């Protein structure tokens, strides 16, 4: 495995992920490259398309790096928005072991 055995980093998402948050979220993700990451989206009340773009780009990049990119917890609003705009995050959900 290319990945070093490092503890997965975790990122808790802000409740409101709108236009203003996209840049910040991008910065946070960029700073976490190179190791497995779990994302806690349980506090999310509102998420916009821009932040979802950032998250999906992150998932793509993590996949390319062969690191794990998983959502540990997601809020109802987060799930519904992803369903609404047709973004499938099922494969990114943490699997119950």
């Amino acid at each position: 495995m290319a990945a070093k055995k490092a503890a997965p980093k975790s990122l808790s998402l802000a409740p409101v992920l709108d236009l203003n948050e996209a840049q910040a979220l991008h910065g946070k993700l960029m700073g976490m490259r190179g190791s497995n990451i779990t994302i806690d989206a349980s506090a999310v009340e509102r998420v916009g398309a821009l932040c979802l773009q950032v998250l999906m780009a992150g998932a793509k990049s993590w996949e390319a790096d062969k690191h794990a990119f998983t959502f540990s917890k997601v809020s109802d609003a987060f799930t519904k928005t992803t369903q609404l705009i047709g973004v499938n995050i099922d494969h990114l959900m943490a699997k119950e072991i």
Partner: protein
Amino acid sequence: MDMNEIKEIFFQECEEQLAELESGLLRLNDGDRDPETVNAVFRAVHSIKGGAGAFGLDDLVSFAHVFETTLDCVRSNKLEPTAEVLKVMLKSADVLADLTNVARDGGSVDQARSKQLIRELEALANGEAPPPAAVVEAPAAKPAAAAPAPVVNDEGFVPVAFSFDDFGGEEDVLIVHPTYEISFKPKADLYSKGNEATLLLRDLSRLGEMSIHCNMEALPSLEQMDPESAYFSWKISVKTDKGEDAIRSVFEFAEWDCDLEISLADEGTAAEMTDEELPMQPVPFDLSVLDDEPDAPVGVVEEEERLAAVHESAATVAAAEVASNVVQLASTASRAAAEPKAAAPAAAAAQNTAQAASAAAPTIRVDLDRVDRLINLVGELVINQAMLSQSVIENDNNGTSSINMGLEELQQLTREIQDSVMAIRAQPVKPVFQRMARTVREIADITGKSVRLITEGENTEVDKTVIDKLAEPLTHMIRNAVDHGLEMPEKRVALGKNPEGTVRLTAKHRSGRIVIELADDGQGINREKVRQKAIDNDLIAADANLSDEEIDNLIFHAGFSTADKVSDLSGRGVGMDVVKRSIQALGGRINISSKPGHGSVFTMSLPLTLAVLDGMVVTVAGQTLVVPLTAIVETLQPEASAIHSFGASQRLISIRNSFCPLVDVGRILNFRSTQANPVEGVALLVESEGGGQRALMVDAIQGQRQVVIKSLEANYTHVPGIAAATILGDGRVALILDVDAVVSASRGQPLKLETSLAAAG
């Protein structure tokens, strides 16, 4: 709050936005390349567009849209804001202002002009730079349906969907609703303007059964992405009976910022779609969680919910009429919902660049009538207070100290109240100055001259009445300055001047008055020509020997015009005398100073308010008069040795080795028939409008006080030599002296006197 009130607020905001727009463009024109300035300009146009869209002002929306597109090219550095570009933009700002006015007051705009500008703006946006669509050119998801999608063109013409279910009878109730295929590809602007794709999709999902596929192919890797750009695009199919219009209305505020294609899929294509390799996710109908968004105003959400309920009940009826009504309701709701969203980008941008925009103090809008009523009342209060003090003084010789102290405090308070109330009416001259910028542009265009208007001191405040009445004379003068004052560019080059003429408009406070100066760097007054014209018009004798100043002042004479040809703009010979009269009607003065080859300077001095006046109360032949304090330079007690006779009836007073004509106010106003003895009276040295000084003879000075101006014209009729009236503390009416008129009258007909003076000298 009914719709009209909201609309009124919108127009008021439009005015502010237009002012913002113009000042921003002018700053750009001056070489300001601050991105925040460009943003401010862009926001101004965008806000107008957004608001106009909400009120269905299509002309305004379509023009603002084209304008905005071009501005966006400037914003994204695709279009260099050169002088030519800004010229078109400034003109567009003018047209936008016209369109706003027409939308509010009715009337019509110059269609040809706005069409022409639309073409120019489009040429700028397309010709010299790629259109903003190129910002994110990702492989677009083409709609599967082959039907040509109706495209919204720039005229704001939205093709009406022709959906057959509208004609459906009862048998349609059980029939499956038509499916629309929608290809929705946002551009970065959609987000930067505060629209949110998720909300659009949510609104769309409310129309009926929706399946969606999000195309993420364009999404780059994390490090390559711009988090505020648009990468997602969607293919959506909606099964709805609301028709295409309802779908379009969802995208109403975003349609310019996205590629949107809507087509009616027949059953075959719909099936094909679902069978394609792109898996469509069905969207759950329960989206209640999304409704709790803190940014959506509660009222709107409730309204939407109510409307959604209407939709559902209407769907079962399936009558064409009801359906179309619902569409209307739905679009109203989406407009209402979109408004706060439109406001969001401005707020966000303001946050980002808080340091650029100075924080505006909170303001309220008040009806002018209310302020005027307050001012009237305060005026009465001042008079009443003066009367009270007077009667206390008269009735109580010693006056107990507590009453006197109380009265003094009352006096101070009333004075303060008055000042504060006056301050409410005080407004910066900025709006008038900005209007002048437009005048300059238009005249420069017509005359083929190149002119730059520089304004200074726009924030100088003056009473609103003064501002309102200032616009007309200023427009006249600016026209004159550009039309007569400035030379044609070729001539300027030949003279070694900058081909671009400069007109400088400044405002400043000076000793309790506002001084407005209009300077041009043109050819100055052609004194030879003025003189010849005056002789031709029998205004002066052919051999009259006039000083330069006297010749310059000839242009204020009624019926005087030096233009060889009467142009559309000026030169009808009604210009400057009208200007002078309107300035005088405001209690102001106007002066010219002109240097041949270097230009002319017009200086206007105006009172800050037309409601109160600091005056010197004087006695003339037993009458009480008030002389405006601003006119008085000094007062003196003449000595017999200083009085010199001059000619038949003129007298001069020698003050510090210079002679000054004595003007007997009592004689001029016909208060008495014989000349008063100057030694027994007091001389008030006043500055007259020609710049010279005159000594006004009065019998005695009573004191100095602030008086409330009561118009004589409004209550009685105009009296020559009298500017207005006031009520004194003892309840009597005192007349306020029109110093300039009295001085002119002392010379007989002003120009006759000048000739006679000249002949004598």
